[in-house]
């Protein structure tokens, strides 16, 4: 059997570099694939946590005047649901694919800065734990994920809730920025010979644009969070109107970050879909260059539309017109992408495998979300829809219908490469149908409820307004949605107990990651590949006139690998210590910050002076 042959090969391959295992090897790993797995596992955990929070919210809203959750708990849960899904689930799930896939797809042996990569992960983990530790103090953030001033001032939020949020997000920002520098350099500098920019796989292109957005958007939110921290801890009044501060400044700073953030969440999914559709249509991606430039154009415009989140603040007709027009303009490059995806599938020899199901589901769902977005790009329409469930429906269609469908397509597509095991196709299709049905049951009625005037962010609603039935439907839908991920988990656990049965190239892939064994060996490519076109593997197969032979697992002797290091973890602990220090200023004085800084410097110095290998 093929499986046993593969297993034998694997046993044979450990001769050169000893296969690493054990807790210490994970704490000190600088291998981009292991860091990717850590990112994925952690982010999926947070995704489930955010999902459970959502289901609790839905149970509360399932009936009028419900007392299942107190108003205060409801506020904490909806804030943490949003914050978790954005910063601890979707972004790091994308980061999992950046980590695992970018080096493989550009033919590199690792990222440009392996230790910085590990640092990003540990800081992300620490930030996630810091943020969620608030639950143990009964003081989870409760002001909404957008943290509007002056709801966040000490006067109106005296507890630790907002402190956890503003400090936790600063920690997470460091993780994102470090990773963005790393991947920006990796993509520009680590490409295999012949992998020109316009030959890069579309996922790499969209990831590259995402890093640019991260680099330019995150400093802005960092400053906003610092100002908020100063307001809350050091007595400034940046967002306090009674001292001359302007709460609207927060909204501007937040959305100058916040709107590019939306594209940070969706562009990686665009990239994944652009990999999956061609492979399962057996056709090259339609309009490659148009895809690249429309992605870049979306990112560029993404910095010029932030105030469409603020139409109701009364900015005046000129600002409203400008931001309405730029917002409508974004529909054009997005439309270009959608038509190119359709053009890719059109006339193809379509293979109905699980990743393709999710990719096609993505297109359908994302179009709905995109269209409702164009609807409230018009200020008069937005004035009606703002703060209602219509908005909630819109952004769930783009973030769940878009990002999560895309990421799930990527999960099924790359699972064999990452784990060496094929996921069960039937269970995958069950997952898909449950998710599609559950998703639409949950979020489609929100359009109608929103247009009928049901406000968002309110913990309950009275009887007799006609909201009961649709809310019940939504709650049932959310349970089905939850169930779909139970099926996914079951699929993972079931196949994890089976043999490592994934061949190197289970889908007849076009890109370099399918040229090497599943899962890849530590050094990725025994020989650095040379690239001559956009779909290097398809070209190799065409030249050969059939499938390529299964690549052997080799000993890897003589291949230079970076040394493992504990210092990224130490530095991450120090950085988090600084924020814990700020949190406990009123108890221990500046000593917490001093200890945190000392650990940080200790970690960074040891990191700088340790031989990189």
């Amino acid at each position: 059997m093929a499986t046993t042959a593969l297993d034998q090969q694997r046993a044979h391959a450990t001769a050169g570099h000893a296969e690493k295992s054990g807790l210490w090897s994970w704490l000190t790993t600088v291998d981009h694939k292991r860091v990717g797995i850590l990112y994925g596992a952690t982010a999926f955990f947070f995704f489930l946590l955010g999902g459970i929070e959502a289901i609790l919210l839905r149970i509360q809203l399932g009936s009028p005047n419900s007392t299942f959750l107190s108003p205060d708990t409801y506020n904490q849960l909806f804030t943490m649901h949003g914050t978790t899904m954005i910063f601890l689930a979707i972004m790091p799930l994308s980061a999992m694919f950046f980590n695992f896939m970018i080096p493989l797809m550009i033919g590199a042996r690792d990222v440009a800065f392996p230790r910085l990569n590990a640092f990003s992960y540990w800081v992300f983990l620490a930030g996630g734990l810091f943020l969620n530790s608030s639950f143990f103090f009964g003081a989870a953030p409760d002001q909404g994920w957008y943290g509007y001033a002056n709801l966040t001032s000490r006067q109106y939020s005296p507890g630790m809730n907002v402190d956890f949020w503003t400090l936790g997000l600063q920690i997470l920002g460091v993780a994102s920025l470090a990773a963005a520098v790393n991947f920006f350099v990796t993509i520009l500098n680590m490409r295999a010979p012949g992998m020109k920019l316009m030959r890069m796989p579309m996922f790499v292109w969209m990831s590259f644009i995402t890093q640019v957005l991260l680099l330019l958007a995150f400093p802005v939110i960092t400053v906003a969070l610092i100002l908020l921290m100063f307001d809350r801890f050091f007595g400034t009044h940046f967002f306090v109107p009674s001292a001359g501060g302007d709460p609207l400044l927060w909204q501007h700073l937040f959305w100058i970050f916040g709107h590019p953030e939306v594209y940070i969440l969706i562009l990686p999914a665009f990239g994944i879909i652009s990999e999956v559709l061609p492979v399962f249509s057996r056709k090259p991606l339609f309009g490659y260059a148009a895809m690249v430039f429309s992605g870049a154009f979306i990112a560029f415009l993404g910095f010029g539309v932030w105030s469409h989140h603020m139409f109701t603040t009364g900015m005046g007709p000129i600002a409203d017109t400008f931001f309405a027009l730029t917002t409508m303009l974004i529909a054009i490059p997005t439309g270009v992408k959608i038509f190119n995806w359709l053009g890719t599938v059109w006339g193809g020899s379509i293979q109905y495998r699980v990743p393709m199901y999710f990719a096609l589901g993505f297109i359908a769902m994302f179009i709905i979300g995109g269209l409702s977005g164009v609807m409230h790009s018009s200020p008069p329409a937005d004035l009606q829809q703002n703060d209602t469930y219509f908005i909630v429906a819109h952004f769930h269609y783009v973030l769940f219908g878009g990002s999560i469908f895309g990421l799930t397509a990527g999960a099924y597509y790359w699972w064999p490469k990452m784990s060496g095991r094929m996921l069960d196709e039937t269970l995958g299709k069950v997952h898909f149908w449950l998710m599609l049905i559950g998703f639409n049951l949950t979020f489609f009625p929100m359009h109608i409820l929103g247009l009928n005037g049901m406000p968002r962010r309110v913990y309950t609603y009275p009887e007799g307004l006609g909201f009961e039935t649709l809310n019940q439907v939504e709650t049932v839908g959310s349970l089905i949605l939850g169930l779909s991920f139970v099926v996914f988990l079951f699929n993972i656990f079931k196949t994890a107990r089976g043999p490592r049965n994934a061949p190197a190239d289970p889908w007849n892939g076009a890109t370099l990651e399918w040229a090497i064994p599943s899962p890849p060996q530590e050094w990725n490519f025994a020989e650095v590949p040379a690239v001559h076109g956009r779909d290097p593997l398809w070209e190799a197969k065409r030249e050969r006139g059939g499938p390529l032979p299964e690549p052997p697992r080799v000993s890897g002797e003589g291949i230079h690998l970076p040394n493992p290091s504990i210092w990224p973890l130490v530095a991450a602990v120090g950085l988090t210590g600084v924020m814990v220090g700020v949190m406990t200023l009123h108890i221990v004085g500046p000593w917490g910050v001093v200890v945190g800084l000392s650990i940080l410097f200790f970690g960074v110095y040891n990191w700088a002076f340790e031989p990189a290998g």
Partner: protein
Amino acid sequence: MSDHAHAMQLETSTGLDNRKLAIWTFIGSECLFFATLISNYLVHKQTWLSGPGPFPHERWTSPSGQAFEPIIEIPLVTMGTALLLFSSLFVVLALANAQRGNRNGLLVWLAATLFCGFFFVGMQVYEFTHFVHRGLTLKTNLFGASFFTLTGFHGTHVTLGVIWLLTLWIEAFRGKIPPAKSLNLEIAALYWHFVDVVWIVIFPVVYLIK
């Protein structure tokens, strides 16, 4: 650059060393960080409901007859600014010596850079202390809050640069920065130049424009 320097670099797709590209990327990102802080200052510089009043550069009397003394001391800060600008030249000379393998020249010019950096940080500590004695703190008014936030974060960047360059000075003293490793200094120097350039924007915006 010398042949040695080329020999130690790995081949990259752009031909630019990874670390050099990374520091440029980081600097690009930092531009947005300081742009936001500077905008925040511009928004708030005339906002005061208490404390030293709207024109910190000159004596000012409000319509109600309340008098405000100027608080900003331009000569001292000009001195600090000049030294910081010279330090950019000095670090270039230090790098040139490092690339030629002239350890003594490297040590002297790097020490000159460090002196300027220390002077600037010292100047800022003095200025902040002086302001606090005159009654302007983070809490006094929004001018104070945005002034201290902007110049404080710049000062933190200078301080980190000083620590970085001091580390490199000790390394150079121990003979651990041969020409082949001059890139270590070049990267720190790029960061140092950036911190200077930011100050070239902050100095007129805060101290010269009324």
